[in-house]
């Protein structure tokens, strides 16, 4: 297992390298002049040209790319924000916990609400609970997160005064944003769980388990659910992109200073170091979380764990 993890970590390097090259290239070719943006419309063409030279923007693509890759991967320096004149890495590390908090809490909500919802629907197939759960799931995938967020604010902050409407502080500040961002994912998880459970419930070994006299609870949670979780975990992993992408919208609606908002502002301002640095950092975080999700497969399914260990034994022999 250790070798598998190490191999995956090493494979991350070319992935992140590729991401860095792609984002650099995109920002290089996107129209818009950061020097003009910094100096404003009053600056003359000569002033703008001088500023571009100072910022290294008049160097060739290869030179700029090489400089960026060297600074990022050798010196671990993501540069300085053109507009704010502050180190990008420092600002990202301040903001990353907020984005991670939203992302991880959303994943947690998807697991603790979506999976039981799907199990309930599957166990009561075609019954009232099934229809109710699937109706909620349909509503969940249909509602935009920003709209839901504002509705939740109107209800829980304005009308009931129970939760804060914006900002960061204690965990109560994350309740509404995470729920708004996770709602669609909860719905997707519920639907996937229901589908997987229905497949598994019809299996022979489930019939055997029932025939052996095991309790219903044991049949569902000890035998059916673990086997149904593989596709569910896959969906959870794939949903990461939606979670972190949705975090940008949620951070704006709830004024949470996260990486998404930082990056979005930088895109509009053509603040290249911030955009590049944010994407590279998110790529690292994303890769690590996907690795963790993959490791969960091994935790859940002993067959996959055995495969990892079997590969190691084959290598030794």
């Amino acid at each position, binding site marked *: 297992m250790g070798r598998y993890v190490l191999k995956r970590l090493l494979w991350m390097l070319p992935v992140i390298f590729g991401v860095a090259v792609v984002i650099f290239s995109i920002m290089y070719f996107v*129209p*818009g002049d*950061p020097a*003009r*943006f*910094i*100096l*404003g*419309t*009053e*600056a*003359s*063409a000569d*002033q703008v040209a001088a*500023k571009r030279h*100072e910022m290294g923007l008049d160097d060739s693509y290869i030179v700029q790319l090489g400089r960026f890759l060297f600074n990022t991967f050798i010196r671990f320096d993501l540069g300085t*924000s053109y*507009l*704010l*004149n*502050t180190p990008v890495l420092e*600002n990202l590390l*301040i*903001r990353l*916990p*907020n984005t*991670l*908090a939203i992302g*991880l*809490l959303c994943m947690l909500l998807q697991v603790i609400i979506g999976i039981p919802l799907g199990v309930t629907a599957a166990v009561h197939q075609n019954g009232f609970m099934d229809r109710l759960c699937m109706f909620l799931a349909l509503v969940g995938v249909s509602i935009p997160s920003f709209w839901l967020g*504002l509705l939740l*604010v*109107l209800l829980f*902050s*304005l009308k009931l*005064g*129970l*939760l*804060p*409407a*914006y*900002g*960061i*502080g*204690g*965990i*109560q*500040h994350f309740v509404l944003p995470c729920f708004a961002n996770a709602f669609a994912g909860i719905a997707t998880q519920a639907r996937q769980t229901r589908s997987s459970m229905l497949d598994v419930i019809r299996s022979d070994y489930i019939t055997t388990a029932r025939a052996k006299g095991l309790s219903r609870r044991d049949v569902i949670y000890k035998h059916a659910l673990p086997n149904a979780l593989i596709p569910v975990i896959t969906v959870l992993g794939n949903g990461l992109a939606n979670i972190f992408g949705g975090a940008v919208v949620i*951070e704006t*609606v*709830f*004024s*949470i*200073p*996260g990486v998404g*908002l930082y990056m979005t*502002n930088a895109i*509009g*301002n*053509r603040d290249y170091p911030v955009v590049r640095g944010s994407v590279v950092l998110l790529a690292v975080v994303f890769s690590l979380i996907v690795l963790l999700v993959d490791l969960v497969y091994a935790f859940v399914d002993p067959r996959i764990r055995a495969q990892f260990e079997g590969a190691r034994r084959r290598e030794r022999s």
Partner: protein
Amino acid sequence: MKEKRFSLFWKAAVLAFVLMGVFPHSRLAAGGNSQAQSSAQAAGSVAGKSIVRIGITYDPGTLSPLAARNGGTIAVHRTIYEFLIDRDTFGGEMKGSLMESWEQVDDLTYNITIYKTIVDTAGNSMGASDVKFIYDTAKAMGTLPKLNIIDSISVVDQHTAAFKFKDPLALGDLEGILSEIPVVTEVSYKASGDNMATRPVGTTAYRVTEVVPGSKIVLEKTENYWQTDASKMPLAAKSNVDAIEFHIIRESAQLVIAMETGAIDITAHIGNARQVSRFQSGGDLADKFTVYNYMNNPVFALPFNCAPGRPFANNLALRQAVAYAIDRAGIVNGAFGGNAVALKALGSSKYGDYNTSWDAQPYYEHDVAKAKSLMAQAGYPNGGLRLRLLCPNNEESLNMATIIQGYLSPIGITLEIASFENAMFNTLKADSSAYDMFITTYGSTDYIVNLWKLGLYAANYDGQRTESFVVDSRLQSLLSQCITVAGHTTANMNAFNAYLNDNMYVYGLVVNYGFVISNKRVTDILLDSRNNIIPGSCAYDFSK
């Protein structure tokens, strides 16, 4: 069974520990609300201290005095830092803030003497060397083009610095330079370690006590503000409240909710007319809030692309046809819900050097028949002209563009609207093949001539053309006279305005109103020259 419960307990404990670790701000943000804003907090005072909470939509990103100007920095800087000079009102007389006196030595040199008793909130005294340091540092950074007119700064004595300029100054240049950047002490700037990005040290009556990046900035009143002579204090130097909190709220709907719940006391950043109307007379929130309105500095204008080969080049009749076709009153009502004023020139009466006699002069009042007649003169008797309008992708500009599109249709012009985000918009403006006209704003913090300079002064571009590619030496000659101190006369201003109107290179559309909304605890407000709230100088009644 016991083992399972034990295992579950440890899993829950680990999860709780992880969650605590993920929320660093729950421990660090002393000002963070631990519950929804309560009536106790909304009372505006905590433990005997008066607090005012300001809602702003822009994140400064950095509190450095030398940061490139953005909506966030200009909203908070005046509370943290002081400038050499300041104005008490928009367009009002400049008053020394850190500067005690000034003297013109020769055509290019001005001696600036600062007060001898200036001390920053860290206890460091300020001298002329600090003035030289901050201006030299700002110039070297190259992010403030206005400073390029400075040739050098030297220290004359402990409290006097000599500013030497490269050329004789134009109107407003000296005031602009002396109010361009805040002055801080060199020792505090270097001691901060991050150019004062998160640890600013200014000289106002307030010091920053807490910064939650992207979320909140908290300032508390110091008890040892250096300026003890009230008669010498600009209005912006007052300290009528013990603590000030700037809350960064990005979404305007959230700003409205924050006002309603009492999370903030005052904001100048609710610009949507529909949202503002709830707080105005007749609205559902009118009895709990006060709305102050002010005319904005920037005006909306429609420059015509006169680059060679474009339809408007050398075609005065076409430019005038478009001007007559547009009903500015319709834009006032349609795009701004009545919260705007149609212009009668390129500029508004807010500027002290605006000549109110221009209001009585005709200025292309809406006349479709005349517009059609001019279209025929322009070579389009049957219409059939296709034009491209460039505009930024904000709500106001898009609404105006749509309305203009509707007005041009009856005279035979099919208008394509091309809207872009700001960076792209500014890039495309420099491409004469990308558009035929564009919607933009021009503004200044002092004189209308500086507003004119923004779009029409060729020296700001390639020395020959204006922003919209107009090459007209007479236009430049008339403008050049207006912008000098000696030439800034009514006659010269009238001449330029008349020439601009006759040639219709730029059509002044409207100027809109901005709003400051406050709860009843705020009894009077003070805005700076950029219409940002100066919270320490507002008046309060915390008994309400």
